[in-house]
C-alpha cells in the first residue's frame, strides 16, 4: 500500500510538472463549479438561464435510445443544420448533478457531437443550444433499465 501511495505521488508530481509545461495557459479556475454542483435540475437550470426565453426546436436533432439497458453508458448524438450555434448544454434531469456537459465550439466544427453519458434513472435528457442570444431546446425521454450504482 505504501508503494502504491508512493507511486501515486510520483505519478501526480510528474503529471503536475507536465501540466504546467503543456497546459500552462489553461487552468481549472475556468471550470464553472456552480454549474456542476449537486442539486435539483430546475434550480440549476434557472440559475444558468434565468428568465431568458427558451424556444423548443426540432432543428436541434437529438438521438438517444428510448430504452437504455445500462444507465452507465447512454449514447447521445446531437446535430443541427443551423448556423451560428456557439454552445451546447447537456442536462440529465434526474442526475444528482444535472448538468453533464457545457460545450463551446467555433465555426470550424459542424454542429455535430456524439458522447456517452451516465443516467441515474429514467428521465428527460435536455439539450440547450445557444445561437447568438437565442436559446433552443430539444429533449428526449429515456427509460433506464438499470440505474443506480455506477451511474448518474
Amino acid at each position, binding site marked *: 500500500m505504501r508503494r502504491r501511495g508512493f507511486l501515486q505521488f510520483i505519478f*501526480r508530481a510528474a*503529471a*503536475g510538472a*507536465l*501540466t504546467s509545461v*503543456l*497546459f500552462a495557459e*489553461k487552468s*481549472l479556475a*475556468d*471550470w*464553472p463549479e456552480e*454549474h*456542476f454542483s449537486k442539486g435539483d435540475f430546475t434550480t440549476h437550470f434557472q440559475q444558468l438561464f434565468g428568465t431568458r426565453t427558451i424556444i423548443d426546436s426540432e432543428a436541434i436533432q437529438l438521438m438517444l435510445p428510448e430504452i437504455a439497458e445500462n444507465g*452507465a*453508458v*447512454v449514447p447521445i*448524438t446531437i446535430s443541427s443544420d443551423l448556423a451560428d450555434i456557439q454552445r451546447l448544454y447537456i442536462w*440529465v434531469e434526474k*442526475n*444528482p*448533478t444535472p*448538468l*453533464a*456537459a*457545457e*460545450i*463551446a*465550439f*467555433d*465555426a*470550424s*466544427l*459542424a454542429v*455535430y*457531437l*456524439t*458522447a*456517452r*453519458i*451516465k443516467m441515474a434513472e429514467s428521465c428527460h435528457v435536455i439539450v440547450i443550444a445557444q445561437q447568438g442570444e437565442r436559446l433552443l431546446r430539444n429533449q428526449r425521454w429515456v427509460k433506464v433499465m438499470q440505474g443506480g*450504482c*455506477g451511474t*448518474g
Partner: protein
Amino acid sequence: MGSIKIRSRQLEGYTEIKLLITHPMENGRNRHPITGALIPAHFIRELVIELNGRSIMTAELGGSLSMNPFFTFRLKHRERGDRLQVHWIDNLELSDSAEYLFESDD
C-alpha cells in the same frame, strides 16, 4: 500518459474525428463493490481541442460522462499538415495531451 486516442476519417464535405480517452470518470457517489467505501470523485473537468494551436472546442464536463469518454466531432475543413491537439485536465489536476497530424489531403 497516452490516455488519448484520436482517429479521423474523411467523409464527403467534412472530416470526422473520434476521440477516446481512458479515464475512470468517477463522480464521487459510487461505492467500492467489495469494501463499500465511497470512491473519491475523479473526472475530467475540461477538454480542449485545438487546430494548429487555435482553440476550436472547449468542453466543461461534470461527473455524468461515462467511464472512458468517447466523442465524435466533425471538422468542416482541413488541409494536409494540419495539426489537431487535444488536452484534458481533471479534478485532481492530472492532465494529458495528444497531437494528431492530418497526413492526407482532404
